[in-house]
């Protein structure tokens, strides 16, 4: 395979894996917290966290530039530490993480809300601390839904284009992901290259979706009735 194909593919896989991993920790933690948080602001926070799903990716990218650019609120501070994420693959990870976050968060939230609260009560009465209740009861019972959400997030992160282009740019071999490479190939009139890239991207996403739908469909309510 030519480096024009395997380089963007490997970079996209790396970015998508990082974004999925970060979202698994972040999305699950936020979802669990919100599913147990009784407050009238709950719905508002939930809507804000879903925003990346509906906002145009270029708008997301613009927000990221404003925040993380050299003169941005966080960017200026990061720049002093020599850690500016603009035009780096880490920048692409940030864009993909943000874009895919709602998918993990929504799935995890629904999964945690489906866990019978009485099972958590039973675990508390049996002597478990809150973290143990989470690890031994809530998380395993919500795992299937969380994994399904993570697979969707992986597919979304793999396909991220708009926000990635704005924050990470289009540097072949450094920040050029699969979606960006497809755009570049077509722009350059390299139809053969574009075809291969498109097929690789499609196949990866179809597999992720099939596995995700299989996991959600087989989810049988195994409650102690």
């Amino acid at each position, binding site marked *: 395979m030519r480096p024009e194909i395997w380089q963007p593919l490997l970079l996209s896989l790396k970015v998508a894996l990082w974004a999925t991993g970060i979202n698994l920790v972040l999305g699950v933690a936020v979802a669990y917290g919100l599913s147990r948080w009784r407050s009238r602001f709950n719905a508002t926070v939930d809507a804000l966290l879903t925003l990346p799903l509906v906002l145009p990716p270029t708008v997301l990218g613009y927000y990221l530039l404003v925040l993380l650019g050299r003169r941005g609120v966080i960017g200026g501070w990061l720049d002093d530490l020599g850690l500016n994420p603009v035009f780096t693959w880490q920048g692409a990870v940030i864009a993909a993480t943000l874009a895919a976050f709602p998918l993990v968060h929504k799935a995890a939230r629904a999964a945690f809300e489906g866990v019978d609260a009485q099972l958590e009560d039973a675990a508390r009465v*049996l002597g478990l601390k809150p973290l143990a209740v989470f690890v031994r009861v809530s998380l395993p019972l919500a795992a299937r839904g969380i994994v399904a959400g993570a697979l969707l997030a992986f597919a979304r992160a793999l396909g991220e284009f708009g926000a990635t282009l704005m924050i990470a740019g289009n540097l072949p071999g450094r920040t050029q992901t699969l979606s960006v490479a497809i755009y570049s190939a077509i722009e350059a009139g390299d139809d053969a290259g574009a075809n291969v890239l498109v097929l690789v991207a499609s196949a990866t996403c179809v597999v992720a979706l099939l596995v995700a739908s299989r996991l959600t469909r087989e989810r049988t309510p195994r409650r102690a009735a």
Partner: protein
Amino acid sequence: MRLDIAIQRHLDDPQRPFALDVAFRSNVGRLVLFGPSGAGKSLTLRAIAGLLRPDRGHVTVSGRTLFDDFRGVDVPARERHVGYVFQDYALFPHLTVAQNVAFGLRTGLCNPSRRRLPDAARHWMEVFEIDDLAGRHPSQLSGGQRQRVALARALAPEPQLLLLDEPFAALDTALRSRLRDSLVALQERLGLQMLVITHDPADVEALGQQVLEIRDGRIHGDARSG
């Protein structure tokens, strides 16, 4: 006095505001709290177990104060050493029978192993004759088997008090009377104090050494059954 309870708790649910105000003492082995659904029986049980925080009052079990708003005592549920058998048993669906029974014997971050079981779990599975169901999951059990698993799980950590929420409601009638007798036998053998809540007069008849009637969040009389 083995059990000394006074609980006040106001629930401001806009559709159904409810005030729980119960106080009782008991020295008997089998105390029954009897009343219709919605009377506050489950709330009382939850408050004793530490799953619901009373606004005012105290909870004392065998001389140990578990809650006292005046003295600022509120022992967390996990440290109360109170056994709880939930109405639909609340068995962990992702764990086997053996893991369910051993659950409270391991309070760390890992669930008990499927194979290497603590001796206490083995003992309680033998007591309740569920040792040959060890590898099954709760969804594969009958109602009566589930109840035995729930009892074994609650008793394995050796609680000071056993709370039972409508323990026979999920079972068919034929099974109920047999299991009532075996519950009485078990309580007498262990000498453990039990608090049973029920809306079924037959439970009162079979189990109650002391019977308290609860209606609209208050205790109405201390009726002793024959």
